[in-house]
């Protein structure tokens, strides 16, 4: 049986909506099944893998840095890369280059790369299915 390949296109920036949580839940399940995954991080989503994201304490919650244990999407991307590899799959995470330049978020977590709309075209051609999660 041939391997399943899925592509997900994301548009939302980190820390702005629940769409990305949904996307990461889907991607996590797909990674556990050993699927090959492509992610095209477009517009605001180009900041998901930005390596200089930093967690912070939360004085409103009365929690210090360790207690708050604030999530960062860069850590989620790194965890997804590791999980995909652990189950024998591949994750090609592409950050739209022009979107990255607009936002000044060109430092990515290792294992992700800069790309272009041509990558989404190639992903589409090579995938069993494509899911777009657009900004609303």
């Amino acid at each position, binding site marked *: 049986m041939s391997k399943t390949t899925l592509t997900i296109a994301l548009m939302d920036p*980190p*820390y*702005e*909506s*629940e769409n*990305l*949580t949904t996307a*990461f*839940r889907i*991607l*996590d399940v797909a*990674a*556990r099944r050993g699927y090959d995954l492509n992610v095209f991080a477009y517009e605001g989503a180009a900041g998901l893998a930005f390596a200089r994201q930093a967690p912070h304490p*939360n*004085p*409103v*919650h009365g*929690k210090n840095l360790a*207690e*708050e*244990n*604030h*999530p960062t*999407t860069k*850590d*989620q991307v*790194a*965890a*997804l890369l*590791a*999980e995909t590899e*652990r189950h024998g799959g591949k994750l090609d995470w592409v950050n739209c280059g022009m979107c990255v330049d607009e936002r000044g978020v060109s430092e990515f977590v290792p294992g992700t790369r800069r790309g272009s709309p041509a990558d989404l075209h190639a992903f589409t051609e090579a995938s069993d299915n494509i899911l777009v999660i657009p900004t609303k």
Partner: protein
Amino acid sequence: MAKKTLNIVESAYRAVMEEQDDTILWLLAAMQAAGSEHTVVLRGNAVNYAVAGQGVPGLTIGEWKQTQTPKMDRDVIDLVQKWMIPVFVVEEDLRERGIAREELVPGVTLVARSSLPALFAEHAVVSHW
């Protein structure tokens, strides 16, 4: 003396998983600590923030696990008790969603839509989030 600000919060559960709270309730608490004088009205889907006992499992991605999940009912209680911010809940919006008064956290006050103009008049600033 700070300007009294009425904050109508309508956008609900937006990025609460990533932020581990609601960004507007957080902002108002932080501003209150800095000397602001806020009141909150929960309307639309945001009335659900006042429902007691809600919670959500943390996000898990491979071996990465979220340990501090958002607890919106706790945040509403903190607004009232810790930050001394009055919290009103639009009763028609509760009714439309089948939520009974008994399901809400203590300390919140129901307000009818018809009473909102009077509430507006008591405040120097009205912000709609």
